[in-house]
């Protein structure tokens, strides 16, 4: 078998973790463990929620834990909507939690022109 993955993260927590990924969470430097997911990192640090819903501003964190529910979304390296329970931390990752909904586009009258239809 030829196992293939296109990034550096190797699975399996290891003791003594020489290559432990250094990441930042909301700008704060954190040492993660090899094989850790972003959700694993956040829960280990005592976080239970790291996002709010668009409608009611309800707090959200881990729910299904296997990539199905999309509750645990974070921003990684500037890219939003990353499932924390699926994403392995990699050295240098800039992880941003989103306690509030993202702001509107510049000059955007909130709520205008955003109605209607299928989705």
């Amino acid at each position: 078998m030829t196992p293939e993955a296109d990034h550096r993260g190797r699975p399996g927590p290891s003791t003594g973790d020489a290559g432990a990924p250094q990441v930042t969470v909301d700008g704060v430097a954190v040492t993660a463990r090899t094989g850790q997911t972003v959700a694993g990192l956040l829960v280990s640090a005592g976080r239970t929620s790291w996002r709010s819903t668009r409608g009611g501003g309800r707090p959200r964190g881990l729910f299904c834990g296997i990539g199905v529910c999309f509750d645990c979304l974070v921003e990684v390296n500037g890219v939003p909507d990353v499932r924390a329970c699926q994403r392995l931390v990699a050295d240098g990752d800039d992880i941003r939690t989103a306690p509030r909904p993202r702001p509107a586009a510049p000059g955007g009258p909130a709520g205008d022109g955003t109605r209607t239809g299928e989705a």
Partner: protein
Amino acid sequence: MARLIAVVGAGPAGMAAALAAADAGAEVVLVDAAPRVGGQYHRQPPPGLADQHAGPGFARLEAELAGHPRVRHLAETVVWALEPRPGGHRLHLRTGPADSPHRTARVLDPAALVLATGAHDRALPFPGWDLPGVVTAGAAQALAKGQRVAVGRRVLLAGTGPFLFPVAQSLIEVGAHLVGVLEANRVGATAAGWLARPAALLAGRAKLPELAGYLGLLARHRIAYRTGHAVLAAHGTDRVEAVTTARLTRDWRVVPGSARRIAVDAVCVGFGFTPQLELAVAAGCDLDATGTCVRVDIAQATSTPGVFAAGELTGVGGADLAAAEGRVAGASAARHLGLAVPVPRAALRQVRAGRGFAAALAGAYPVRPGWRSWLTEDTLVCRCEEVSYGALCQAVRQRAALGGRVLRLTSRVGLGPCQGRICGRNAAELAEALLCRADQRPPLTPAASARRPIAAPIRLGELATTPTEPSEHGFASTDPTDRSEA
């Protein structure tokens, strides 16, 4: 690639299918989202903790796959679309860190396909179920086994079915204080379900020592295992701080006066499983009478020629049954390619026995309709779009929103990022219960609700540049360093 078989999902069923097909002479691509094979069941065991599931058997399997010259494992790879092509199907893959916009694209035209995409926990809504700290049993187990983290310090586990036991074990192993395990079905109801199928009970006798072991474990840790009980509500502001539990009738209505409040910082819930059907539905596979599982014949063949299914996709019956189904499916897929394959008699026998056990399980641990009485007007049914039970009722009653699609579009239930994976079954059952007149019920099409042509997340920019044809070797890739199949 005349001899290429794609196996989607590398849990017990997919691993077994890949080996069986490769042993029969086929070239196998084994695709899975995780970095290592094993699936949810054989989730990579943390070192230093003996794990009875991912024991020597798993290590041997993993080594066998790794050493097999005809198995290529695509780790961290999702199948985000499956479309028909003349004589088969075309898979569209992305390999790389989950949800990254910089993943490698591949297109695969296998000659046969084995779907072993598994299932996820079913969660039933109840007041407060969307508070942080309320997670599925599977989430708690994945955190414990894969990340070696306990989801909380004082944890309550609730739901139905024997799959709660290994979750309890995992939680104990990572040091959580388990304040109780609540089984919603009552002992009498459970026993009746088992007794209705004595043959299956016999077939499942291998499970009895395992069950006894779990009960012993709970007893040693002085953890109460209460049948006929459930979590009725979770309380807290920014996270769960307490729950109300209650005793249930046989139909899961609350026994008056039985409510108790318990302080917890995490609740894990699991009410059976929902198979991940999107690829099977995209391949046009018929579902079974329940509309939740893929229908297969004795050879694990689906209704679509060249497409085979194994494991929880075809009905939940545990890892042993899944692996046996995988062996049969792998052999059948190889035979579909014209390879001479001996009849996998032992595996067929195991499947037959295992299916009986699975049916007995389903009979013993059903989800009973009384759960609907736990909801209040403002209980969210759809977590993504924050659709309350009250809003759902209004859509059904006022708009006569009858079909699944119309219900989704009028109430917005299931229209969010999870696309109804969590709430779809629950919303359908709630809506159906609200429709009393038979002529208000248009024919239900269960496959329609599992129809998700975008089977896994992909970004618009990735889609804009995705290859649509495979290379001459059966692979297309956007990665210039990607080696073509030899």
